[in-house]
């Protein structure tokens, strides 16, 4: 059985009200509004899709189709530490796949997933634009350049230690 989303009935908050005031109810605003929702909540909650469906007069299936098409949108909240490994060509050539493999091994989750305790999530990105520092990974947007498996281990150890404290 899939989980019923409890947030289906959440009342619109001030951010969301503001969003509706900013954008006209025109279909081409859908992706722009979803971008803001993703930015604000860290994911695109189901209730926001329901509200947008009403506001823009676009069926929910279509909105869901858009949300699942674009990789920037996520349906679930990301971990407290969202670790993103660049798999752009420049980083790949410098061994970023090894960083990704190690990360998945250490955290026991695959890319696109979040650990059960909600602490970590893994993503892949394609070029964060720091090719001079390749390979890179980012944690909550902060760039860690010239990465190695050891460097990753150190950073993870540090974060896990902090979490336990």
């Amino acid at each position: 059985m899939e989980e019923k989303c409890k947030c289906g009935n959440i009342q619109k908050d001030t951010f969301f009200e503001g969003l509706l005031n900013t954008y006209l109810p025109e279909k081409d605003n859908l992706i722009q509004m979803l971008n803001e929702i993703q930015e604000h909540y860290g994911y695109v909650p189901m209730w926001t899709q329901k509200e947008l469906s009403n506001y823009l007069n676009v069926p929910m299936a279509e909105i869901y189709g858009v949300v699942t098409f674009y990789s920037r949108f996520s349906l679930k909240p990301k971990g407290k530490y969202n670790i993103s490994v660049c798999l752009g060509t420049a980083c790949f050539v410098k061994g970023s796949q090894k960083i990704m493999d190690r990360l998945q091994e250490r955290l026991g989750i695959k890319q696109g997933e979040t650990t059960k305790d909600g602490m970590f999530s893994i993503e892949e990105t394609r070029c964060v634009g720091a090719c001079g520092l390749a390979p890179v990974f980012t944690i909550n947007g902060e760039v860690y350049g010239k990465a190695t498996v050891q460097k990753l281990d150190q950073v993870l150890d540090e974060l896990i230690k902090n979490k336990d404290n």
Partner: protein
Amino acid sequence: MKTLQEIQKIREEKKKELELRVNTKADTREKHILVCNGTGCTSSKAPKIIENFKKIVKEKNINNVRVIKTGCFGLCAKGPIVIIRPEDTFYAMVSPEDCEEIIQSHIIEGKVVERLLAKDINGSKVKSLDELSFYKKQKRIALKNCGVINPEDIDEYIAFDGYRALARVLNEMSQDEVIDIIKKSGLRGRGGAGFPTGKKWELTKQSEENQKYVVCNADEGDPGAFMDRSILEGDPHAILEAMAIAGYCIGANQGFIYVRAEYPIAVERLKIAIKQAEEYGILGDNIFGTNFSFNIQIRLGAGAFVCGEETALLESIEGKRGQPRVKPPYPAQAGLWGKPTLINNVETYANIAQIILKGADWYASIGTSNSKGTKVFALGGNVNNIGLVEVPMGTTLREIVYDIGGGIPNGREFKAAQTGGPSGGCIPREHLDTPIDYESLKAIGSMMGSGGLIVMDDTKCMVSLAKFYLEFTVSESCGKCTPCRIGTKRMLEILEKLCNGEGTELDIYKLEKLAVNIQKASICGLGQSAPNPVISTLKYFREEFRQHAIQKECKALECKAMSQIIIDEEKCKGCGLCQKHCPVGAISGEGRGKRVIDQNKCIKCGTCLTSCPFHAIGN
């Protein structure tokens, strides 16, 4: 709102003030500390450097110094970069802690901080940017203002001839005259296939419709390419100006810039630029008192490579899944909401104003017979000078890799260069002297693409590289048409088999059969070009595929299933460094004794390989 005269006045005043940016002999006691704020340098604390400089300048009450945030200087490998003008001193890998010393020594005492000077490939320290071999063969047109002006200040753009082309076009030229100049210049689209820009403008102008649109494709999705982003970050007004000129030519009053949401700095600077341009009346109604009106809106992409394909991009602007449309009809006939639409990419637009100001002949004098002007490349991978380079068309790959890029690090050999990203192909050693232009790249099985140029040394496995690109294509395929949706997946599965040592020669045959048919039968450029990395690697490195399929061997050691990392007993001196560095504790041995790798534990990360001082570890 500013009149043309007022803008001219700003230009004259600012020009004097900013002379020191471009003239090392400028007669001034002012100094400008330029700090690169491109994404690369920003990732390594450039904003903190600016903050520190500003704080120190204020504390020390120095009044002839200005700290300027600029776009990318290009040499990302040496970032964060700080340049001091007018003397043009080039400081590399500056940390926020170095600011104090730079101010004290360089600014106050007039002594260059030697330890922070950039080193050239030969090891010599260079004092100024121009001395670096990295810049010697470059010619900056699209990147002209990047690293020179503050992208968040419209006045600085105006000072360097900004919006002069637009003013000239609107006041002195007919639509056809402008299109004629663009056509004569020989400018071709910088986003991929190289369609002649002037022709595109002409076709869009010819479509009869009241409502038309101008679109800027800033959805740079090629992994490992960041040309467009650097232009947007370093010189956003150049794009706005070119779009307005395009709007005038084709008869559009609305423009859209479709930019990746993953480019927050570029988006922010575009927003600032649009706001400033609107305040000056350069965007909006009746621009420069003419009856031409033009507005620009930003539309954010949301992470879909396929949206770089022009019709998918249009779908996305309309708020839909970015699934390409069948062409024809082309956007010039039926684009956004079915209206004629002109789409060019960022780099293409970045050339427009200068072509108008300097003339078609000037532009056409640069480059090769069929490819005019310059091309910006994001040079990356196994090369010393990673960064952004702009070279005249016709420059050879060898010049880019060795003269500008400074060759391959760690004394390794060049194996191949990849251009055109997931749509392009690999260029092997034997084609290093190919002059880079649209036709010659195509002839050797690659393509210009948007400008990613990744160098690979001899430790790279070409089968895994093909697999890497197919992984990318499979995850970025929109899923609309069968050949791309299922075909690329099947190609990837075959490549995975090969890399796992489970492939056969029949698989190579199947791979080729799929490749050819996907190329021909897919709807859009993504699918049609998705097999290119496989086709070109098969063309030049077929033997490697056969080794994987028949001998089950990956000489480059990349394919884990087929490779073992072992320690050569002869060479091992028992230093234990490998053991110390191994992240999974797979290496055993004691004291000065030989070390052994437990193959069951080894994750083939390669850390031991690089840590061994005696080169005792290998296949």
